[in-house]
């Protein structure tokens, strides 16, 4: 069914999966869309760097500095290859996906070729993560531009029927997620990019959920800017990636000012380094970027196509299992081949917190809440949902444990009088 071969062996790469939780339960980690677990090779690479090669980069002229710089810049090469970037210079290390999105939204407030102002429009979608909403709210509020939204269809897709009304000559930016972290929806990014480019708009794609799951090709995506975050791609926290077409990055004004991003500084004026350094002020997340490099190599070694197939197989199996729970409502597309591996659902009669807590006492980790997607929740008339999310290390047995746990939850809260547990 498309599962990764030797899954048991692969799981041994992730030390935390052996963790025993309260009550002697084994960990069933179904919160990977929130953050992924880390394979030993990522941890070991970071330790090796810290214990043997640690030094600041670029500025240091000594052996450790050369080693550290080489490792850091090699990580940039790995990222460039992973996303098929035409040039390594187009790969900028940020602290997370949120910073990447803010980098674009923040700099568009200042004079420049792409500046957004009164009369201009920015288009986002109702399924965005808050990190792809708030930066644009701040930008449009601050510049007097207008923020507009793609709506969603009942089954959790973008409502493309309004595209002609939304994307017009006034549109300066279209920013959307590649894969929804709540609905799982995979968006037709290339198609929307094509429409946006027809009116000369800038296309920003949030690939935070796509990068872990899909083979990425930033050029084929049609986007001008693509961001993702390290900790969801089995890398460490503290590092994210912004890729942008060279012309765009060269045209954007600087974001953070400081060491490393300058060409020269005088009291009168400063000039800025060429990309990527122009957007990397201060000491970058050195060991984190190196850890991310190891993470992406790990994923590439397994193969993104194989990981994608695994996710689809697990998602299909989970959707089948969830369908057996009376009353459950899954939000987003129900066809596994059309979606990513995050599945948010509503179990009427039990609040998602209570679902998550009951599951947690059985060792099953899911997320409950609005998943930083309040507008999407509002769209579907729910305050919050429970979300399971799988990854390359997820097994069918873990999905079974979830489904059993949900059946137990219903009976625990007396929704299933016949088999009530108390």
């Amino acid at each position: 069914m498309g599962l990764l071969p030797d899954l048991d062996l692969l799981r041994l790469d992730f030390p935390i999966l052996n963790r025993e939780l309260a009550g002697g339960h084994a960990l069933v980690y179904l919160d990977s869309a929130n953050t992924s677990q880390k394979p030993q090779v990522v941890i070991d690479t970071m330790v090796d760097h810290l214990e043997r090669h640690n030094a600041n980069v670029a500025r240091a002229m000594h052996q450790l500095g050369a080693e550290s710089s080489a490792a850091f810049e090699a990580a940039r090469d790995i990222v460039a290859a992973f996303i098929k970037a035409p040039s390594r210079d187009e790969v900028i290390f940020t602290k997370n996906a949120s910073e990447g999105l803010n980098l674009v939204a923040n700099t568009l407030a200042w004079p420049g070729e792409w500046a957004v102002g009164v009369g201009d429009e920015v288009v986002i979608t109702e399924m965005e993560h808050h990190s792809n909403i708030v930066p644009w709210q701040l930008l449009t509020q601050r510049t007097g531009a207008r923020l507009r939204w793609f709506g969603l269809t009942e089954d959790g897709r973008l409502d493309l029927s309004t595209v002609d009304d939304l994307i017009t000559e006034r549109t300066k930016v279209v920013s959307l997620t590649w894969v929804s972290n709540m609905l799982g929806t995979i968006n037709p990014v290339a198609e929307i990019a094509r429409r946006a480019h027809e009116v000369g708009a800038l296309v920003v794609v949030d690939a935070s959920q796509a990068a872990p799951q899909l083979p990425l090709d930033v050029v084929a995506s049609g986007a001008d800017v693509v961001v993702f975050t390290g900790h969801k791609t089995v890398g460490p926290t503290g590092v994210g990636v912004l890729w942008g077409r060279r012309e765009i990055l060269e045209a954007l004004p600087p974001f953070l000012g400081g060491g490393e991003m300058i060409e020269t500084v005088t009291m009168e004026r400063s000039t800025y380094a060429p990309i990527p350094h122009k957007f990397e002020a201060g000491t970058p997340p050195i060991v984190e970027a190196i850890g991310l490099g190891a993470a992406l190599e790990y994923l590439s070694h397994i193969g993104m196509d194989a990981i994608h197939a695994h996710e689809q197989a697990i998602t299909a199996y989970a959707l089948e299992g969830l369908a057996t729970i009376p009353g459950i409502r899954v939000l987003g597309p129900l066809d596994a081949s059309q979606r990513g591996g995050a599945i948010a659902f509503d179990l009427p009669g039990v609040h998602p917190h209570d679902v998550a807590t009951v599951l947690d006492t059985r060792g099953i980790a899911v997320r409950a809440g609005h998943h930083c997607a309040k507008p999407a929740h509002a769209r579907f008339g729910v305050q919050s949902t429970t979300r399971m999310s799988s990854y390359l290390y997820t097994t069918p047995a873990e999905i079974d444990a979830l489904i059993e746990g949900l059946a137990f939850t219903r009976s625990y809260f007396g929704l299933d009088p016949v088999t009530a547990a108390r």
Partner: protein
Amino acid sequence: MDLDALYQQIILDHYRSPQHAGLREPFDVEVHHVNPTCGDEVTLRVKLSDDAEPVVRDVSYAALGCSISQAAASVLTELVIGKPVAQALVVQQEFLALMQGRGTVVADEESLGDAVAFAGVAKFPSRVKCALLPWMAWKDATSSAMNGQPAHPNSPKENHHARR
């Protein structure tokens, strides 16, 4: 982690039959608190007496949230309505200490009443803020009312205890 220690029968009873639920007139102050993490919300109104040492005349609320936060709101109303504000604030402090005690604080049944049932919540750190949501809203509304601030039903109040 003992599920039954968390979901004590008293809590489930309050959840299923919440006391004093629904927003009522008259009121001095209304606040709206949100748990930013999960989106749970409570709108809460307080009415104090005009005495020199005011008494909690009424507390009413509309809560959107989990069993723990809804039960907490219900228990809260039972505990504070009719009490002098000063005394109710002491109860609030005791409840806070119980919740933040990670299971080491012994609950005083005399003053906390049904709220002792929340002792088990303290062992579930991720649920502590659920139990505290209505209490923080009440404390906020009460101190506004004491300071003679007008009702502000339509301005969402920042949730100052969130995310702790």
